[in-house]
């Protein structure tokens, strides 16, 4: 007993020392970056599915707004069939793009209308050209929804494992779209050509506010608001980053059921086998 007390005291004093260690300061200046607010997404959770109408609206926002600067190079026009478009519609969308091809028989590069097998063209020739044109390199949007996120911190990151929360990226992108402030807070010096965004790390973002109310015409009666555009384009980006998510979750459920039944059978088999041990 005395020994266990000794062990506990030793351990306790050690852990006490750790706890008493001065807490590091997280403040990176006075302008904290708040956590992006949680949004409701149709694709969250074990049975989540993309909302096809939302993806189509998101595509519209991408094509009319984002595509001016951002590429989508891993997405082919044929992939748009996933959004609920017919073969003819996919062909029509592809044909609206000019694709550089070649060399032809004369050894020359040429432009032709896009085909379903083509990928979304990036709006700039190379990164240096982009830097001149946009004051930075606009990131390709294909995997951006998985390439962005924010720290959940203890203990939330542990709960996320069980609640399957993994929409950090889309929550952040939505927050970023709606997080622009016309004027930076007092005392914040904004670099030339940058905009102030509440959610962007460091707050000075090279991208000017991309969305504004009524900027994109919605034909399905959805509200033409910045918030709605932001949600739709974020959902679209999630699809672009993880196009097989629905199949993944569907197969996952089947696998879980199979494994549960299999584990149950093996449990009873184990009991039966061990009952025979003498």
């Amino acid at each position, binding site marked *: 007993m005395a*020994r*266990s007390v*000794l*062990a*506990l005291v*030793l*351990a306790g004093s*050690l*852990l006490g*020392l*750790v706890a008493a*260690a*001065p*807490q*590091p*300061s997280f403040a990176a200046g006075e302008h904290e970056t708040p956590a992006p607010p949680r949004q409701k997404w149709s694709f969250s959770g*074990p049975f989540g599915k993309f909302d096809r109408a939302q993806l189509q609206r998101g595509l519209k926002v991408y094509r009319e707004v984002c595509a001016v600067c951002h590429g989508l190079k*891993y997405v082919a026009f044929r*992939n748009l069939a996933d959004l609920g478009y017919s073969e003819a519609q996919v062909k029509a969308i592809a044909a609206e793009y000019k694709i550089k091809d070649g060399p032809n028989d004369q050894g020359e590069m040429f432009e032709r209308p896009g085909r379903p097998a083509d990928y979304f063209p990036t709006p700039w020739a190379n990164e240096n050209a982009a830097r001149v044109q946009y004051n930075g390199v606009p*990131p390709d949007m*294909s*995997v*951006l929804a*998985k*390439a*962005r*996120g924010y720290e959940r911190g*203890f203990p939330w990151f542990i709960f*996320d*494992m069980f609640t*399957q929360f*993994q929409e*950090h*990226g889309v929550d952040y992108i939505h927050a970023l779209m709606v997080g622009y402030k016309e004027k930076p807070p007092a005392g914040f010096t904004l670099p030339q050509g940058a905009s102030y965004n509440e959610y962007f*790390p460091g707050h000075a973002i090279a991208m000017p506010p991309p969305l504004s109310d009524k900027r994109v015409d919605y034909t399905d009666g959805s509200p033409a608001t910045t918030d709605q555009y932001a949600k739709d384009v974020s959902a679209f980006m999630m699809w672009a*980053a993880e*196009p*097989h998510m629905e199949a*993944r*979750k569907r*197969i*996952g*459920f089947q*696998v*879980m059921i199979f*494994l*549960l039944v*299999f*584990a149950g059978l*093996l*449990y009873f*088999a*184990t*009991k039966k*086998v*061990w*009952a025979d*041990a*003498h």
Partner: protein
Amino acid sequence: MMSGHSTYQPQSAFMKWMERRLPIAGLVYSSFVSYPTPRNLNYWWTFGGILMFLLGAQLVTGIILVMHYTPHADMAFNSVEHIMRDVNYGWLLRYLHSNGASMFFVAVYIHMARGMYYGSYKEPREVLWILGVILYLLMMATGFLGYTLPWGQMSFWGATVITNFFSAIPLVGESVVTWLWGGYSIGNPTLQRFFSLHYLLPFVIVGVVVLHVWALHMVGQNNPTGVEPQSEKDTVAFTPYATIKDGFMMVCFCLVYAWFVFYVPNYLGHADNYIPANPSVTPTHIVPEWYYLPFYAILRAIPNKLLGVIALFGSIGILAFLPWLDTSRVRSAKYRPLFRQFFWIFILVTVGLGWLGSKPAEGGYVLASRILTFYYFAHFIIILPVLGWVEKTRPLPNSISEAILNEGLPLGASGPAPTATKN
């Protein structure tokens, strides 16, 4: 335990013919069928089998992924996205492989902790344990090399941090790093050699696993009492008793594995690794995979680079000396009341180091890392040797059967107590 001769009796004429020429059926029979295992093994003893399964799964998924992956600095990231999008079930293969690595470490940490708790490293199992430490090191190397292959930001900068360890070597450090990189900076030659080694090391692991299992079958399994089996009453045949139990736990483990693969496949990864490698942009925090975090914390706790690297490798290397650092003659923590508490403190300290490894190296985090690093080494160098001399251990049972009779079955062990009373 495995006396070398098999009790396998070939039935068919072909098997009789074969057995006289290549007794492989007899070897399999004596190793995986008639092999006696202590009857009181609990479910913590099933992780060796789970690790075998995971090694197989990693090999199969890895070999198929290689059919679609391109090990080139300009194409690696694209080829991974090609796998994720256009290869049939490519997303499944890749998520199985990347999460499989994490599951491998989950299982190996449980396997190691079980060995430490029940004193499975003690005489005569020292070589078995050291082979395990070698396997662990090989796994860490393989995991690190694999993480560089998608050539994302964390791949690139993780590789930068790890290879820079070697620049701490006095005099020749810089030359060694240049040699490792295959150039004056991390680039395509680095990726290609990392890919080559990532393909090679798993087969080295397979080889050492064979030695590990061979050594295990030489000395026999330890068990929760730490008392060696003395008669046939203390053991049961590997098949069906251990196979069915291992199978059950393997499927339970697969449930966890599948949860990660299908529902939170990127949970254990890092978002930055979906950004293509960019030598001119350093990520805000370069964080290694979760399974390296305790050692990363130890590295950063030491202000001197060379000493930090020595501490990092020392923290793993010291495990190999565990059989001699633990001076107690009693194996199992079950009969070591004081060791049992220090064991759990050690686990907590290691988890604490892991958490600190994920935090930026500043302020209180550094101080906390230093204290826990000190404790980590003190556990091996001070606590374990001293405990062996001062600890008053509880009386050991005379045999496994007696322990089962007196104490009931240990956690997770199935089956009734044997009818050993009437002898």
